[in-house]
């Protein structure tokens, strides 16, 4: 049995192709059941997001040939050649590694983003509910979730901000911790102001006030972000009570100059204020950052923070890759061990059955035996068989832990006749010989 992963993602395929393979939520169950019913496939899992469409199956190695036609069918008018130019097929160890990398967000467009784990879990729930995920994929996916959790908890892969808006929100939390009880003021109502405000207020804020020269723009943004709007003339009254100020107006001059900021800082009596000037040209006099307890960040500052965050994530990703590699090896060792387990169980059962049968046959010739004599004979039988089985069992375990151990297992099965049609007959033969 093999594990196969077939699909394409943002690295391997252009969006023009990816968008044609996105499967609507409503169609996913039927599509998954159709995939699972293909020849040679025992279990199936289907992940479809805007950045990837991937199929994970367990089954006969030959079932790989049915995966591409399946995706061609899903994609409507996609040509097979075009699909195969952009798709990848991972088998066994490579499939496990790829799955672990995907769930750990190492294969994402923004490394470390948390959404992918949720998407994989949703796909897993669907697989469970449709019955296409059973023992093999269940174990593999559960392991993948555990690896993702380990990566997230023991590396900083998802922590550093990678976008300007995220950097602004993170820095605000470095000043105020939880923004729950704090006042946010948005000066301006443009696109950038909206985006930054959305990020900063995402975790909840005490209050949000929008101040804009155009009353209508202020009102619209305030309603969208569940805040209030205030007339432009009251800007500095509002700023006195603000903790985070996002400034992004179209004004070609400083909206907050040094003098006003000094007055503001005095009025706040040392309470910190975070000014985010994301306007170009800048709306806040850069000298304001020199004032005590006033922290001014402009676009370049935030860009530098975001770039440092990306660099940090890259460093953390190296550590995460090592974890994924190690965990994939552990999983594969375990899976290979499972490969040998049925043979070990069968071999032990076979030899013990033989032993019991031969013992029953020869006991009659010994005449009546006392209880003690019977017990000694039974102990002898078990001890002898265990000694005989010791080395083959070790050999099977060793073979099971090696990727190329399948041949050794097959040889042992043949040597002990485990795949014979009527094992009892062979047993009798060997008994006679003994």
């Amino acid at each position, binding site marked *: 049995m093999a594990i196969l992963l077939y699909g394409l993602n943002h690295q391997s395929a252009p969006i023009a192709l990816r968008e044609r393979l996105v499967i609507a939520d409503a169609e996913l169950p039927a599509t998954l059941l159709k995939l699972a019913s293909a020849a040679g496939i025992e279990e199936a899992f289907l992940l479809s997001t805007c950045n990837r469409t991937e199929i994970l199956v367990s089954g006969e190695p030959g079932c790989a040939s049915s995966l591409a036609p399946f995706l061609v069918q899903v994609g409507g008018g996609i040509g097979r050649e075009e699909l195969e130019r952009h798709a990848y097929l991972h088998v066994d160890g490579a499939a496990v590694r790829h799955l672990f990398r995907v769930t750990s967000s190492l294969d994402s467009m923004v490394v470390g983003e948390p959404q992918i784990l949720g998407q994989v879990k949703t796909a897993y729930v669907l697989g469970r509910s449709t019955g296409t995920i059973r023992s093999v994929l269940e174990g593999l996916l559960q392991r993948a979730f555990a690896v993702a959790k380990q990566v997230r908890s023991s590396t900083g892969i998802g922590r550093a901000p990678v976008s300007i808006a995220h950097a602004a929100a*993170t820095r605000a939390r*470095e*000043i105020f911790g939880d923004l729950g009880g704090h006042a946010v003021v948005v000066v301006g109502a443009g696109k950038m102001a909206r985006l930054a405000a959305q990020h900063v207020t995402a975790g909840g804020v005490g209050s949000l006030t929008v101040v804009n020269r155009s009353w209508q723009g202020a009102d619209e943004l305030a309603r969208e972000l569940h805040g209030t709007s205030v007339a432009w003339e009251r800007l500095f009254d509002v700023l006195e009570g603000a903790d985070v100020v996002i400034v992004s107006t179209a004004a070609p001059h400083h909206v907050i100059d040094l003098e006003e900021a000094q007055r503001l800082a005095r009025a706040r009596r040392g309470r910190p204020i975070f000014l985010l000037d994301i306007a170009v040209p800048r709306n806040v006099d850069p000298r304001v950052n020199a004032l005590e307890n006033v922290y001014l960040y402009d676009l370049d500052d935030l860009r530098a923070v975001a770039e440092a965050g990306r660099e940090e994530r890259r460093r953390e990703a190296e550590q995460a890759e090592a974890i994924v590699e190690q965990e994939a090896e552990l999983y594969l060792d375990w899976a290979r061990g499972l490969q040998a387990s049925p043979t070990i169980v069968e071999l032990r059962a076979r030899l013990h059955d033989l032993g019991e049968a031969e013992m029953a046959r020869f006991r009659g010739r010994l005449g009546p035996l006392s209880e003690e004599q019977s017990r000694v004979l039974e102990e002898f039988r078990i001890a002898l068989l265990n000694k005989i089985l010791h080395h083959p069992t070790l050999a099977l375990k060793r073979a099971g832990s090696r990727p190329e151990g399948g041949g050794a297992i097959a040889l042992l099965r043949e040597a002990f006749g485990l795949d014979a049609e009527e094992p009892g007959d062979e047993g009798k033969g060997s008994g006679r010989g003994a």
Partner: protein
Amino acid sequence: MDAAVWWLRGALVSYAAGSLLAFVPWRRGGAPPSRPIAPWCAGLGALLHSVALLQTGWTLGRCPLGTLPEVLSVLAWAFTLAALWVWWRSRLDVVLAIEQPLAFFVLLLSQVLPRESFLAGAAPSPAFVRFHLTVILFGVAALSITFAASILYLAVDRALKAKRPIAAFRRLPSLEACDLLAYRSLAVAFALLTLGILSGAVINDAMTGAPWTWRREETLAILAWILLGAIVLARLGWGWRGRRASILMVLGFGLILLRMLGF
């Protein structure tokens, strides 16, 4: 050798280990350890130190607060307990990075200073002196938390002003968390120190006939108390805080520590 000395040496080693290990996560990239070791070192140190103090008291047949080294030893113990309390409440193990070296050096100093009794005159009662010393020591321990929080505040302020990348903040609490910890611990410290200074005046009066003798160490203590009182009042009255307040709190602790070390 007295068994208490061995317990104290064990405590010293634990504090030293705690000091070093509290800094380790600062140097590391990546995620903070899920189970930091420094608090456990501090806890072990505090335990060994407690045994040493109990044994010393048992051997001497009195409370081990009769000499400057004994007072400093209890002060180091109180520093550790205060830091562990903060860690227990807020999991801010970064406070240990400041408190543990402090506890280590004060305990080390207590082992090299001459063991002369400073209670030469007639004190009103040993119990009253013990009360005075206890409130002072725990007041200074609370103030050490103010000191640690203020240092952290200044570090975060500096990093924010310099626009350092996020990694610089990994182990640091938010600016506001530092401010809140500093203010709360200062309120406790100021109340205890006020009680300590008042009880000290009573002891002074009984020993010398005057509540205030204008000795250098007394003047240092009252200066620090006035400074801390002014900060508390400014915060209560005007909500004053920020960088300057943090610098003054560091200065206040410095003055108090100098007084405690006998300068």
